[in-house]
């Protein structure tokens, strides 16, 4: 069964309740509830302009919410700074990658570990280059000269440099070739197996639901549908209204 507007019961790593956010006079989120448990992959679906990126920006402290609470690891992070949120292990890999085009791949990764000490940096660098050997081959190349797929790897690698406990990935497969999209989803599965929790925003609904434990559909300013991925795949409303079938 798919629960609609269900209240949260379990203690989660990330717990969002009654979140309202937007830009100036534009209301984008109007009472969003969402939770990610430790070790889960949670998919956040919704059509273009539904407010997924706005939600992510609110979680990472780029936008201040108007109302509602965001608890990460039991602490309310509303009103804290993006630096504090990064330091506490919530890392947002944004839509459009936002890597540093004028800096080398190595420097991009170093900046990913800006909030971590030198010792952590070496350890994380080793881990990132193990996951993305291609980045190690291009250490001295400028970020802006990488291909789209490599830039996405760099964005995720940069995020991993700050030892995330929860990684928010906003449309990581955007603009990638079908083959690379496949690779991207495999990678997300791997990172999750290594213990990383992931909030995944995607347009590729089926592939997302295939690797996600749970999913939310954001629509008309609030969550209209949520549940276990398997249930959502069977849900008639989702098929009709969102998948167009």
């Amino acid at each position: 069964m798919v629960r609609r507007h269900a209240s949260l019961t379990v203690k989660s790593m990330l717990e969002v309740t009654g979140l309202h956010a937007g830009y100036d006079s534009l209301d984008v989120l109007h009472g969003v509830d969402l939770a990610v448990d430790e070790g889960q992959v949670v998919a956040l679906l919704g059509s273009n302009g539904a407010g997924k990126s706005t939600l992510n920006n609110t979680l990472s402290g780029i936008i201040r919410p108007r109302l509602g609470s965001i608890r990460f690891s039991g602490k309310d992070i509303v009103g804290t700074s993006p630096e504090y949120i990064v330091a506490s292990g919530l890392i947002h890999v944004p839509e459009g990658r936002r890597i540093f085009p004028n800096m080398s791949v190595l420097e991009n990764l170093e900046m990913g570990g800006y909030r971590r000490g030198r010792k952590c940096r070496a350890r994380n660098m080793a881990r990132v280059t193990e996951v993305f050997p291609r980045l190690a081959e291009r250490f001295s190349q400028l970020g802006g000269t990488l291909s789209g797929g490599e830039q996405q790897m760099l964005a995720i690698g940069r995020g991993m440099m700050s030892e995330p406990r929860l990684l928010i990935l906003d449309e990581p497969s955007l603009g990638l070739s079908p083959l690379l999209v496949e690779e991207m989803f495999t990678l997300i599965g791997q990172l999750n197996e290594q213990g990383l929790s992931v909030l995944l925003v995607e347009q590729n609904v089926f592939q997302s639901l295939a690797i996600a434990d749970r999913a939310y559909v954001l629509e008309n300013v609030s969550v209209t549908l949520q549940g276990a991925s398997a249930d959502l795949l069977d849900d008639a409303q989702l098929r009709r209204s969102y998948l167009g079938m």
Partner: protein
Amino acid sequence: MDILGFQIPTYGWQTVTGSAISGVFLGSIYALVALGLTLIYGVLHIINFAHGSLLMLSMYAVFFLWAGLGIDPYLAMLLVVPGGYLFGYVLQRSVIGQVSHGRDEIILLVTLGVAIVIENAALFFFSADERSVQVPYDLDGLDLGVTFVVYPELVALAGSLLITLGLWLFMTRTDTGKAIRAVAKEREGARLVGINVEHIFAVSFGIGTACVAAAASLLAPTYAVHPQFGYLFVLIAFTVVVLGGMGSFVGALAGGFVIGITEQLGRLYLGESLGLITISVIFILILLFRPTGLFGQTPH
């Protein structure tokens, strides 16, 4: 020579070379002032209109340290450079940043306001009189054969080159320097890796001000200060920044030398008052033919 009824004098090559060499020394100071301007532009994406008044204020600081405490103007660098950094940092963090709410077009106007306030305060407290530091070595120097260069010119060149090198190392080797470069090109990405963007803005403003403070130390033995002192230098520094390419370090250095040499040759051939026109001509030519400057990137 006679062009359109205007007498252009002819000189021997020694005179011309000598003039060009003094242009190199002058240009190194322009480069230093331009370096601060270009750094602030690169990070905050604004022309800092207060840059000239900060140069003037630094000149007064050097003057009063000398007049009051007998501190040599070069030695004063050890005080005015950190002082300039702190002043710039606090000015950006608690005045310019606060008032402008991060909106670039307001920052621009606020720096203009700050410039007006500083200049009027200088006029009120220091009067419109010219003041100059007297050093015993200002006329000593080296004979290069074609020309005689005084020590203050040599120190200015060496100081500017060392500071440029130091700043380049800082920007490429340290975390803070890299964070400045990150913020310059990708503010949101910078926030998302945990860089405090407001702090970096203030650091950049601080370094930009430290550059003019260093320039003030190097200028003090040869230039007298008055409340309008900053105008000309910053106008020229702005030309240097546009010539070199907005935001480019190498451009600021190269542009400084080009403008310095052009100005000195202009003075030689057109006379003291008309000489500066050559700079305006260069400025217009760049805008017409290469608006991105020598080392500038085309905006995307």
